[in-house]
């Protein structure tokens, strides 16, 4: 399982990297971040980029900083750094919790937030986090930068709104107050999730105020569970509501079956994990006060 041959460059600036993408556009160029998703695909020869543009030496793509109520994370920031960051733990605990579910430490030591989002694996955790958080993803191309809302970023399994000559540079996460929860069901510990739920909930007294839910494993991409959010908004934060919301979330969904779970099982797991995610997020919101 050896990768096929490719040309390679490790530019030092973003402009250089974008330039290479454009220049070699007919050679099926791809950007290399941590490689934790791409290189296995290349070892299987399921991905055969003709040109690999390695971002490891490009300055300005890492780091975690605040801008008002937004946490800004460089796309090449390693997941292990997110895991260890006090800033992320404080400002984006949903992200911190989700990162803990991503594979194992050795993978997180190399994998990057930008790489995971650009790869857009339907089972991955971070797309769900960005969806729930209404994050903005910043892409840089030959004509400049643009911000893409998470809701528009994930277009299909392993598909994003990035143009072939664009590179993800930054993730902008609005801060949430209140409670968070990332829960997922996987068959083997830390293996890919069968279903996963990212939940954010704020409380007004005993009632749920603002709420956001994203779920993986029930559709071609991670999706916002808007039907569930409508049930929850303004409702009392209790087990019955959570169950109702979870049920509303799975109505009308027809997930694809695979060797691990039938459609019916995925829906049942999604219902269970939505309920658990909502309960955990609201209970944390309560404890926060």
């Amino acid at each position, binding site marked *: 399982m050896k990768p096929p041959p490719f040309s390679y460059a490790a530019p030092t600036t973003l402009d250089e990297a974008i330039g290479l993408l454009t220049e070699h556009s007919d050679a099926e160029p791809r950007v290399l971040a941590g490689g934790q998703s791409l290189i296995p695909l290349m070892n299987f020869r399921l991905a055969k980029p003709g040109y690999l543009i390695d971002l490891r030496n490009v300055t300005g793509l890492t780091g975690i900083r605040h801008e008002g109520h937004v946490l800004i994370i460089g796309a090449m920031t390693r997941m292990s750094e997110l895991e260890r960051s006090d800033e992320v733990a404080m400002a984006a605990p949903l992200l911190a919790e989700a990162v803990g579910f991503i594979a194992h430490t050795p993978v997180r030591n190399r994998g990057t937030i930008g790489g995971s989002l650009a790869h857009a694996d339907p089972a991955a955790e971070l797309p769900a986090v960005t969806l729930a958080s209404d994050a903005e993803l910043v892409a840089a191309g030959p004509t400049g930068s643009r911000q893409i809302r998470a809701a528009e970023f994930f277009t299909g399994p392993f598909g994003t709104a990035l143009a072939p000559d664009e590179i993800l540079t930054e993730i902008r996460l609005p801060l949430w107050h209140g409670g968070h929860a990332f829960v997922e069901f996987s068959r*083997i510990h830390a293996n890919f999730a069968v279903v996963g739920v990212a939940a954010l909930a704020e409380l007004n007294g005993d009632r749920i105020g603002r709420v956001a839910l994203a779920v993986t494993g029930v559709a071609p991409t991670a999706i916002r569970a808007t039907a569930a959010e409508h049930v929850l908004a303004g409702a009392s934060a209790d087990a019955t509501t959570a169950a109702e919301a979870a049920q509303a979330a799975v109505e009308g969904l027809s997930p694809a079956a695979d060797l691990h779970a039938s459609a019916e099982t995925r829906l049942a*797991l999604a219902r269970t994990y939505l309920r658990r995610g909502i309960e955990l997020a609201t209970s944390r919101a309560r404890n926060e006060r």
Partner: protein
Amino acid sequence: MTTASRPGAPPVRDHSAKRRWVGQSIRRVEDPKFLLGRGGYIADRITPGTLHAAVLRSPHPHARILRIEVAQALAAPGVRAVITGLQAAELCDPMPDFGPDPARHTWRCLAVDKVRYVGEGVAVVVADSRYLAEDALELIEVEYEALPAVVDPERALADGAPLVHEALGSNCAYERTFDFGEVERDFAEADVIITDRLRWHRSGGQPLETVGAIAEYDPGTGSFTIDTNTLSFTSYLFMAANTLKVPANKLDIRPVPAGGSFGSKLFANKPAVIAAMCSRATGRKVAYLEDRVDNISNCDHHGSDRVYNVELAMMRDGTMRGIKIDVVDDYGAYMQFGVGHHGNALAQVVGPYTIGSVRYRVRAALTNKNQQGAYRGFGSEVNNWMLEQMVDKAARELGLDPVATRRKNFIRDFPHFIPTGNVYDSGDYDRVLDKALELADYSRWRAEQKRLREEEGRYIGIGVICAQERSVFSATEFWFWFDEPGAPVTSTPESVTLKVDATGGITAILYSCAFWGNSPETMVAQFVAEEFDCSPYDVSVVYHGSRDGLPATGPGGSRTTVMLAGAVEGAAGKIKEKARRAAAHLLEIAPEDMEWADGGFRVRGDPERRKSLAEIAIMLHLFKHSFPDDMESGLEGSKVFDHPYTTMPSADRKDLGVFYPFMGHACHVPVVEVDIETGAVTFLHYAAVHDCGTLVNPRSLAGHIVGGTAQGIGTALYEEYVYDEDGQLLSSSYLDYLIPSAMEVPEVGIGHVETPSPYTPHGVKGGGEGGRMMAPAAINAAVNDALAPLGVRLTELPMTPERILSALRAAGRAG
């Protein structure tokens, strides 16, 4: 059944001697090199200039090969040769095959006119590197004509199913019904018949190291030398030689340390044959190392894949009378080991119980899948699971306690002959059960189970299974299936040569024996230390190849420890006999007045007059004229140790004879929780008590028990080679073939009981497979115990969340 000894039993041994080294949990002598990263596995032995092979595998489960174009591949950078299946059929004969009809289910190293499973090799590229070889694979064009695939074993046996081998005329490669004891009488007299249908899906060894071989053909001598991490039994070397079209004495297969096997490296000759064929074709040394996809899809070692329909005849008081077993086994596209896996089942088919009669109907179905090979238990673990499921079902239907029901039927007199004719040499099943229940804190967990369900609505289950772990197979289990077997072989020897050098240092030579993670060097070192009062770390153990090796069969059926014990004992005996005479001569004493003690021979009654082994050795090596004319120089001994207890099957096959006599036993008691919302199963506790006779290295055995239990957990909950209804292999990588990590395996509390075998040196029995032979049965029992209040019972392994949730949904109990 009778407890009286029958003809053919070896003499009963006296095990009263105190042991100094056998029984000690010493550090393994193998370990230092592995810890230093100098293990010398096959991939570590590639020398510069060696070429690399890569195999093009079929994407179709069943298809005719119409055309293969290799011109582009041949022209690719670094490519030295491309060999198609058609060309390979000229260069090599079919693979060694112990199946029922090899002429009609012909198995070759590469497919010739037809592919029969996804992953089957159709061509091989040889290039300067594996990278370049894989590049060239992509340039080979194959035109296939897809054929309908047959995937379900029962449908494969039905009329009109697509034929995997046209020449066979059927997908039923073997069918026979055996009756042992008074089946009809026992069933007529029974109060109740418990029936069930059970399904065990295939999983496999999946060691972290794949199979690999480095082959060199020497045109000067017409000989092949192959280094490989698989095992090729010395006596059957001629079969591999036939495949390569050379005389047996022109083929040397040399074992190298393997990164695990669990059966999957047993006689796994295909990589060796491919490498050898490529070496002869290119005139260069060639390495073929499977990658993971090669191994998962094309390894020839998938495990048992069975559909059981069973009837258990019971009396109302819990007495077991008889059992009727109808089993269909999905063998995949080839049948290299015939139905030997069912011999393993028949060795212990009634478990530890006094069941008086057995009907065993076995049908081997061929399908478009990778063939079966060996996986830890070799088919006996499946029988254990089936039987224990039936016992639990019977207890539930009769309203009896499952533990009491087992105890009621325990065999208690030994040696005990079961209805098939095999013998259980020794055992104490009550003691094992008692110890397991204690280790498991059984009563407390029963109370906890009740409390947690009533107070918290949680579903806890406790499994208690009592089952056998046979060891040391005889060759008869591969041919007693036929009234007129083509090759009724009866040898399964193991050999050791011990050499004492001029300084008294001892070297032990093993033949066609492999290091797979078992500990043959440690076992031998401990046995030699026991014999000669030396330190086990002073013994040098070397592995010899097959061509000029003594007869040997290697690991399999948990035989290695027992057989090496016998071989060492025999070789040591010859050395001591000569050393005694030599010492006597030097001391001018009659040999019968000398006794072995403390590493030498001394005069009985005058212990100061002694000669150490080293003193004797140097004299024998260098001072011929100090000895009588008839005493040769040197000090060494070889023993070809044959199976000490095999008897022949009767002509009518109502008695299969003794073929797996050293019978271990174990009890596993897992405590699980089933999350009925997700189908997840987690362990709250796990106790395992094993009786493998006298233990050589208790720590080492405990390690095998935990490891085997971990694999049993995989089989019970996670691992399956999943083929969809079109024959596509869905679990083709480790993303989907799920191996338990440390979080899926609990801490296992281990207990040992030792009822020595009366027939083996030191009373040892084999025990390397036991953990996996128990765990699937135990975990299924525990899950069923957890779900019993919901009226749900799982009868299919692995018990995936999908299967558990489906069963709950069907019972109207989905969470």
